[in-house]
């Protein structure tokens, strides 16, 4: 199939991009890496009046470390994330997740901003951003607006972006000491969207059982005192492919807090996870399958992370 006709625009600046967004409104689609939009155009699933190619907008393709954390430009290609020493150092979760995005020819074009703005519920990077407590920075003619990743993803292909806004960069906060990150997904074939996936962080080891959890794990209160152990102070479990958006397993996290991550605790967390998830079914797997796989991932990833901590 060939795309339906559209007007092609290649703005040279953000200002020009905002003009075009104003002009076309909902009939204009932003083209970044194109690895999801172009198939949709080819299949005539998307038939916009205009395609606004932002690939030549300057200043959106840098990865840098700033006081607020690791700042990744919206046009940074997934391949660049994969190869960046800064990402490996400051956002190891992202480094672990990116190789699961499609294949190398896809990652060579696909961008982080595109992945976040598309908000495919089975995509890896949105889940990582929620797990890391990242901030997604949107730009518009009105200026810049920061949205916490947890608030950014609203539903299937739906985000908090307002008309006229585009993602310009994402800020991954500095990792708090004592946190470890793990990533695993279950896809039928290498490079496919996962049936279920988990981006997880845990703080364990020296924590006293029952230590008070802190949002985003920035403060390390649980790190005070105590002997090295496999007690989980706090965890962050963000599942993907099992709901309309990256799904935080809050009940499961609560069930794990202060526990030794043994089989019983992991099983209890798995049961608690049932209250967190209501997965959809499709041609690749039923809701029951996805729920089950999410529980398996929880046990595996958290188990492994705790083992690595102790």
């Amino acid at each position: 199939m060939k795309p339906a006709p559209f007007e092609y625009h290649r703005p040279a600046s953000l200002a020009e991009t905002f003009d075009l967004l104003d002009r076309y409104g909902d009939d204009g689609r932003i083209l970044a890496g194109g690895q999801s939009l172009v198939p949709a155009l080819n299949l005539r699933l998307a038939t916009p009046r205009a395609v606004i190619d932002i690939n030549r907008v300057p200043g959106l393709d840098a990865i840098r470390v700033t006081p607020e954390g690791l700042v990744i430009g919206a046009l940074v290609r997934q391949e660049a994330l994969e190869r960046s020493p800064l990402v490996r150092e400051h956002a190891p979760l992202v480094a672990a997740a990116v190789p699961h995005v499609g294949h190398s020819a896809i990652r060579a074009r696909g961008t982080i901003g595109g992945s976040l703005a598309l908000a495919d519920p089975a995509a890896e990077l949105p889940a990582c951003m929620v797990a890391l407590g990242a901030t997604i920075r949107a730009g518009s003619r009105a200026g810049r607006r920061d949205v916490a990743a947890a608030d950014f993803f609203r539903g299937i292909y739906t985000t908090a972006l307002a008309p006229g806004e585009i993602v310009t960069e994402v800020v991954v906060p500095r990792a708090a000491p004592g946190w470890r990150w793990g990533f695993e997904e279950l896809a039928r074939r290498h490079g496919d969207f996962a049936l279920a996936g988990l981006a997880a962080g845990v703080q364990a080891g020296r924590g006293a059982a029952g230590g008070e959890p802190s949002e985003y794990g920035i403060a390390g209160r649980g790190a005070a005192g105590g002997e090295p152990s496999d007690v989980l102070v706090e965890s962050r479990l963000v599942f993907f492919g099992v709901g309309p958006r990256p799904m935080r397993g809050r009940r499961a996290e609560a069930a794990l807090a202060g526990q030794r991550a043994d089989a019983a605790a992991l099983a209890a967390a798995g049961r608690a996870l049932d209250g967190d998830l209501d997965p959809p079914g499709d041609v690749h797997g039923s809701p029951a399958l996805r729920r089950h796989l999410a529980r398996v991932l929880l046990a595996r990833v958290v188990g492994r992370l705790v083992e690595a901590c102790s």
Partner: protein
Amino acid sequence: VLVKIALTVNGTAITRDVEGRQNLVDVLRYDLGFTGSHIGCEHGVCGACTVRVDGTPIRGCLMLAAQADGCRVETIEGVAESGAIAALQRAFRAKNALQCGFCTPGMLLTAQALLERNPDPDPVAIREAIGGNYCRCTGYHAIVQAILGAARGRSAKAPEAAPSDGAYIGRSVVRPQTARLVAGRGTYTDDVAVSRLLHAAFVRSPHAHARIARIDTAEAAALPGVVAVVTGREMAAHCEPWVGVLKNYVGMKSAPQYPLAVDKAVWQGEPVVAVVAESRALAEDGCARVRVTWEPLPPVVDAEAALAPGSPVIHPELGDNLVLETRIKSGDVDAAFKTADAVYRETFDTGRHTVVSLEPRVVLADYDPADLTLTVYHSGQAPYMLHDILSRHLRIPEHRVRVINKDVGGSFGLKIHTYPDEIATCALAVMLGRAVKFLADRVESFQTDIHSRDHRVTAEVAVKRDGTILGMRLDDLAPVGPFSMYPRSSVVESGQVLRTTPGPYRFRDYDARGRVVFQNKTPMSQYRAVGHPVAALVMEAMVDRVARELGLDPVEVRRRNLLTTDMYPYTAPTGLFFEKLSHEESLDAVLDLAGYQALCAERDRLRARGVYRGLGLCVFIDLTVPGAQTYGTGGARISSQDGTTIRLEPTGKLTVLSSVTEQGQGTDTILAQVAAATVGVPIDDVRVVTGDTMVTPYGGGTWGSRGAGIGGEATIHTGKALKENILKVAAVVLEVDALDLDVRGGQIVDARTGESRLPLSELGRVAYFRPDQLPKDFQSELTVTRHYVPRHQPLAYTNGVQLSYVEVDVDTGFVKLLGHWVAEDCGRMINPMLVDEQVRGGVAHGIGDALFEHCVYDEQGQLLTTTMMDYLVPMAVELPDIGVAHVETPTAYSEGGFKGAGEGGVAGAPGAVLNAVNDALSPFKARVTRVPMTPEVILRALNKL
């Protein structure tokens, strides 16, 4: 609105105006002529369109051409001509790491980039790097080996390109054709350039079953660039409908089928209106403007429900939804079951599969109203069959039709059927007096390519305590869509399930019923290894069940039941005739090749540690070389005989024209080997031409593993006759007795001493240009044609055994394939390397059946798996290395002794994998009886969902 772009392509600066909607690969192919980049899916899964942009491999279908403004683009043509990938090209050819060659340009560019960043990759890294490049032919094993070889600067044990002794049969000769294909110089049908070409697209039924109340084409017809909009009723005036019934199947019925639906559509995707325009995109724009008013009818989806009283009837004039019921009975089954120590019963569901050749179906039809001739370029396997159909249904005299197969990007049985959109395209060419092309896109391919292997089989075996099988009952229910396909029908697969299930075993008490049923889904018909994968899976799963229930060794149970070498020739209870098979030798060979005992020990050791591995055997038989009675007795005009013409050129070279065809198997290479060996010339002096009904002898083409057994045999007869004629000329020229001469290495030699007497070039010069020097009563005949049809047996059965080794993750239900081994016996081998690769490619198809592939429908008959993201074909990372061993039992009914090798790989693989998975699940007393064995299926068997 056009966008001006300036880019360099393979080093040349190019400026172009493009439409915003044109993607890069379309501009490269259709505007700039770089046809080495191929289009396989247009949604980024297959990698056939891979090109390098600023040095990085990307998907050419997922980048707009406008985005390449200012970029440096490299295509296969560029890197081939610069010599940058010479080592990879050599290695790919030496390992036969390409068959149809359609994926090869993308594969080579991906491999090139891999080796640039990792000069010494291991097989795991290679599989990961090419994991997004789809190859339907090879199973990837040879590709991995080739990349390893190129990386290490050696093509480890390169096959002999041209053995000097002239004994080409039995040698792994490198395919000459692949030199073009690794350079991006293949010419597939979509690459053919003709003048004033128009493009067809089709409005297709969105419903599985619906009446067409009204069609409004006015808006589409008014669109600039649209040349014609044609409805089914309009086209029916130009094309006779067809009925896919074979009269040797008594009681079989089907309904007339038109190129475009008339009044009623009976499956989702059935073509309804054709739009012809100046470009494919414009034709699709036109389709979007055709308004069809539908009146949905209740769909018939489930096979059991289709036969239930009160079911809607798809073709009311036929009375019910039953296409055919067959019964095969032999011996006394009831007595066998009465005397049995145990009886086991099981119901198997085999998923609907489809072919997914990387090159989709494509046809380019050109009608010349001045000359009244129709020339059709077709991606097909049976050009004379299509020629006959076009002649009869479009009412064009046979001698005014020509069908040409250029390079074919994979076929596997997909491209031997009559597809309404292809016939419609030919009819449009006639109606418009213009050239019209139709290239199925991937969604259309899933909706309209034949599907296959949708069976529910209930099997029951009666056994003695020692595992001896006494008898079997079988019931097969096969829903085949709304029509029986034309002209080969849709009942053959069920027939094969009934006839081949007892396959390699001795028991003779057998009672089988098969029911073939209409439903509102995509038509099903013959696909590679027709019925055999289902039959072997059912039989072998039952054998393993017997072994497990009785606590016996699965190898031992097979030995107790297999036909033994002293039993041939053997006529099976189902009527099949086996000249000579080699089950026991093949079983030993596969166990030996795999190191079976060690694998068993490893499995047992790991099982104790909670790692669940399994081994699964599958003994199979496979039908090849269909004989004289094939199809013709059913009334289908499909030739069972084939012909070869060999012409000695004046310089002593051979031109071989054959009616069997080439789709990547290497048919042309084996014919060259046979011709060179039989006539006595170096193989480099032979050129083979196939796939042109104006040029080659009449014949059936390539399907049913008949290329070697029929085309090869015809070539032996032709070569011998030509050699005799050559020697007659030589005898006259040299004034000696022809019996004292021979042809070797392109020379007339003294038969006794081997001393050269006359080069063939000199003989040719005299015969063609100086016949005045020959005696007045002597006429040289240096072009010879011979035909061949197998008459001594209806089919040449082959056999083999496969072994699969898997690990099941019992938490996730995921299956990892650790290894797969095949021992096969295709008779005398012409080119062992090509046999290996046929087997490996076949195994990959079978593994897809077993674990991944499934055409899934909803209750309304809507196909849900219409992209390569949803219909999962295993790729390089999922597939294991595949070991192949050979046993050679030549047929004595032909001079060559060749049988066929194209399908056995598929036949045994699903059964082997199913048995391996069930072995792994055996500690849990769980077992699976359906394919594909998805995580869902396995976890349900384990009671975890």
